[in-house]
């Protein structure tokens, strides 16, 4: 409880107004904590623009979404035509719709790059675990948002994409079919499904998303930003308690981010005006055909941002399950022989490995495909505890770590490419290798991230004035 502060006698009218507000709402306090006196490391580089860009895209999506809802009809018999009506008859409707559809893809491009930045510089390491976890929550909410939004145009891809994803839930043993029924609200994807997805897409998930974004930023501003050197700038402060390597977010990084936003908007508007379909990747051609429950298009693939995970789902067949059993067996034996556990620990490990193999064989490969796909996202939440390297930033890790990241990114892109292609035997084998590498990267991280010779981490951030 602050005591009432009187404005100085010579204060101007705006100063008096601000004083009046500050006594009733912490306006100056909030401004200082998050902008004016939020000290961010001075050595931010290119990779640090994507957080601000993600906020910009979120605003674009919310504003365009509000205007789309004014003309859209969430009814299976009217939805497809109402989207075409927006495109053809509503003044300016086409650009609002293209901004929204391009925005969805832009959102994922920005978020993937934002996450990759975190991976490069160890931004999820202590004390930023919650920043990362809220961020993963945002990623998950975004996937739900994108998936449910994609049903709304009620095209062929909307319909069959939803059919496939809802049926994923039906693969859960015992409760699956009932769960899928609860999601669809009908025995097939239909009007009931469209209506509830509309409700989730326009109100429920955005509310969760906004809450998580607020939590993400509050947590970040509590612990302070990481930087490309992975050094805690708060460890070295001047006499006033301000980090020596920190600069106030405003004006330094607001300018940085406004510049980035200008470049981003040039690219974004170029796509909106000249390639709004993104070559069939942002808006799939089959989605210009109205949903037909009796006919699946000859080639169906999810939108590009889901394809890496979709590839992993497709890769999980009986062969993959058998290989997984073998991997589990080898891991169990290695753990028993090399793990240095006591007799009880070894017994527990052996039992766990056997139970694992039995479960793998007991349920359909279909269920495990769903587990692999879900696990690929969920595993991200555990990253802060998987990475045990001595330096946060890639800059001071052994040089070969960069190649590990390179292989990881390469196979993530390959999985993404294959997920957009029709199924093939060769593609499937490559996806299986990619799936193993993806999970190997994370699950073996506690070991490989500590190996090699680390470089000395400097006391202060490396920064050359420009």
């Amino acid at each position: 409880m602050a005591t009432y502060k009187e404005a100085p006698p010579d204060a101007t009218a705006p100063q008096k107004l601000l004083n009046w507000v500050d006594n009733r709402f912490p306006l100056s306090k909030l401004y200082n904590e998050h902008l004016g006196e939020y000290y961010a490391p001075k050595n931010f580089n290119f990779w640090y623009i994507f957080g601000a860009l993600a906020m910009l895209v979120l605003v674009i999506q919310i504003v365009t979404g509000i205007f789309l809802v004014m003309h859209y009809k969430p009814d299976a018999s009217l939805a497809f035509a109402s989207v075409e009506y927006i495109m053809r008859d509503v003044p300016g409707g086409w650009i609002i719709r293209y901004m929204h559809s391009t925005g969805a893809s832009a959102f994922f491009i920005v978020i993937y790059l934002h996450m990759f930045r975190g991976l490069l510089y160890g931004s999820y390491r202590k004390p930023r675990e919650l920043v990362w976890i809220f961020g993963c929550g945002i990623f998950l909410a975004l996937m739900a948002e994108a998936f449910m939004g994609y049903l709304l145009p009620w095209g062929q891809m909307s319909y069959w994409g939803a059919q496939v994803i809802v049926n994923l839930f039906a693969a859960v043993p015992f409760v699956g079919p009932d769960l899928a029924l609860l999601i669809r609200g009908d025995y097939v994807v239909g009007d009931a499904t469209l209506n509830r997805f509309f409700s989730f897409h326009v109100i429920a998930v955005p509310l969760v998303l906004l809450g998580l974004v607020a939590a993400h930023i509050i947590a970040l501003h509590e612990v302070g930003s990481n930087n490309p050197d992975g050094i805690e700038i708060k460890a070295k402060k001047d006499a006033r308690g301000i980090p020596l390597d920190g600069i106030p977010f405003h004006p330094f990084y607001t300018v940085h981010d406004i510049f980035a936003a200008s470049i981003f908007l040039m690219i974004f508007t170029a796509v909106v005006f000249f390639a709004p379909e993104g070559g069939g990747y942002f808006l799939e051609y089959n989605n210009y055909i109205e949903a037909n429950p009796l006919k699946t298009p000859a080639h169906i693939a999810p939108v590009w941002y889901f394809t890496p995970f979709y590839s992993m789902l497709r890769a999980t067949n009986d062969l993959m399950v058998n290989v997984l059993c073998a991997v589990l067996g080898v891991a169990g034996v290695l753990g028993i022989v090399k793990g240095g556990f006591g007799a009880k620990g070894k017994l527990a490990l052996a039992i766990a490995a056997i139970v694992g193999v039995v479960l793998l064989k007991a349920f359909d490969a279909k269920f495990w495909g769903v587990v692999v796909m879900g696990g690929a996202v969920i595993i991200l939440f555990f990253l802060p505890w998987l990475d045990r390297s001595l330096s946060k930033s890639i800059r001071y890790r052994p040089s070969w770590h960069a190649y590990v990241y390179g292989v990881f990114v390469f196979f993530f892109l390959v999985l993404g490419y294959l997920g957009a292609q029709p199924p093939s035997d060769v593609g499937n084998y490559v996806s299986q290798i990619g799936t193993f590498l993806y999970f190997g990267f994370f699950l073996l991280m506690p070991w490989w991230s500590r190996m090699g010779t680390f470089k000395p981490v400097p006391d202060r951030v490396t920064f050359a004035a420009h």
Partner: protein
Amino acid sequence: MSDPKIDSGKRTWIIASGCAGAVGVGFAAVPFVGSFQPSERARAAGAAVEADISALKPGEKMTVEWRGKPVWIIRRTPEQLAELPKVDGLLADPKSARKPDELTPLYARNEGRSIKPEVLVVVGICSHLGCSPSDKFTPGAQPSLPDTWAGGFLCPCHGSTFDMAGRVYKNKPAPDNLEVPPHMYLSDTRLIIGEDKKA
């Protein structure tokens, strides 16, 4: 605020009222969760449909809608029927033994999974994730299919393959054969789907 003495009687009541409140919230959630279920109108839909197969020539397929799903009726050629026993070794469940009560009614538990050998009636929904497989009746090598392809169906979503009796091939994402819906013949050329003579 910093009084170390805790009034345990008061605390017990706080916990008790908290629990009572939680129970109340639980009951209040029932109608909301319940509203996710299919509505009465959705439950009522799903009547049996009739199909006239007099115009269906050998090797042709027709599709009728039953409960919002595509039901395929295919008049198989003698060559296609002759291929069925040959692929048994490549199939995951050639004898329709998995989940027979859900997938294969008693009268269809045979090599061709049909009442009349030549007329196949199946729900055209892949048992993997619910896509509708495409027709690949022509035997031989073609994209996404093995060179020894004997004719059947290919699911475009995840590459599951089925033979001309809707039986799934081994080592594919789909675990089960295509569902044979309850059906019966009203006459030689008229079929009803969704109803059968209950034994």
